[in-house]
């Protein structure tokens, strides 16, 4: 099942005040500019069952948060966590079997189109992410570029 969710594109402020090297500080332009796309994700039946079991009936108060950040041997690392529902601003929310999946707009380009699977194995098992945007993945499966 693929669910699409539309958001408004974020444009960070063009400049903010930064104090540096003493004196009166500078007004510097902000480099960060976030590209945002509408995220769609795919989740296998095995992943849905495992996720439902992990939620333990807390679907009303908790969400699955999938994110990406710098790290690992290939540049970026995935993170998946079941957390108390954060403030929804800035997130795209995808509902799968009554479980809310939160993906932040910042990560939308990197995580758009991912497929979440679950492997029931003593070694190397657990949730796994296949990412069509990744040009290279680390052997451990947690890092991509």
């Amino acid at each position: 099942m693929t669910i699409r969710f539309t958001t408004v594109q974020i444009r960070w402020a063009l400049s903010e005040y930064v104090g540096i090297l003493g004196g009166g500080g500078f007004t510097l332009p902000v480099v960060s500019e976030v590209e945002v796309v509408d995220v769609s994700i795919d989740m296998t039946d095995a992943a849905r069952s495992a996720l439902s079991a992990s939620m333990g009936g807390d679907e009303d108060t908790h969400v699955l948060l999938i994110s990406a950040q710098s790290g690992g041997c290939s540049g970026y690392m995935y993170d998946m966590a079941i957390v108390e529902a954060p403030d929804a601003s800035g997130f795209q929310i995808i509902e799968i079997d009554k479980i809310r999946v939160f993906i932040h707009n910042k990560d939308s380009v990197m995580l758009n189109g991912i497929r979440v699977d679950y492997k029931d194995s003593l070694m190397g098992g657990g949730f796994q992410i296949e990412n069509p945007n990744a040009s290279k993945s680390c052997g451990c499966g947690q890092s991509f570029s």
Partner: protein
Amino acid sequence: MLPSPVDADNHSVDIMSKSESPKALVFESKSSISIFSGDGPADHLNNILTGDVSKLADGGRVDALVCDSNGRVRDVLSCFGIGDEIIVLGIYENMADTRSLLTAGIPWNKDLVLYDGNDALRHFMIHGEEAMELIKLLYPEIGEFPDNKFVSIGDVIVSKNSISHGRHIDIIYRSDDDSFMARILENSVDVGSYEEWEVVRMQSRFPSAKEVDGTHLPSDIGLGELVSLNKGCYPGQEIHARLDSRGSEKKHIVTITSYEPIALGKSRLEGGLAIEVTSATEFGDRHIALAVAPKQISKGPVLTSIGQEYEIA
């Protein structure tokens, strides 16, 4: 931008002694200057760079590389800890890619912002075997300072890079502060041109964007010292660890001089070995170049397959 620790004395050129000043020259560098501010910029940079930035403190300096997952060098960054902020100097031509990389992986819950400091700050370099003498001429009040620290005189930051053994000093100051230029004028110190810098950096095997183009390993271009194999994961770490454990560094960077023009790109030498000329310019009646060459090629004269005479330094 960093020079490799080589002795360029035996192929020095006249431009170093064009004034009465110590044997070093001042150059303005068109660097990429960014400022990281907010929630843990050192930890964030540490996930990306080849050097350990995690403990960068106020007044500290760390030089490190940005590499891709194949271990190739994409940029050379110098990080200066200023309170909770970090000034990041990089190669200007590589600025867009590096800034994109630095900002793309900021965790969603971290309030971390990268600012463009190109107009707000200026970067000068003092380069040469008597760089320390020249900075002491400009700033007699300056004392000794280690490679991994900087000293500040008012709003002027002065520091040595970590692998040039005192031959390269970076000066960063606010664009609205003219005290550095005033000292340059008071002491009649020459500021070298871009053309002179090109000659000097090629003598010193100092890589620029022409070498740091995403196709070379750190050791190929004299930057192997900026890779820490003890700091944990960063892009390219697997490749660097494998090269280290197998001892398979096959190339190094060399300076070439010739009385004939030196063509950029790949060139075959007599005997079959090939070199890649990455930068080339002329000075006086000679030509100078930087090349990535097999380690079997060391100092001395060589002939190209088409009969050109090169002197490898």
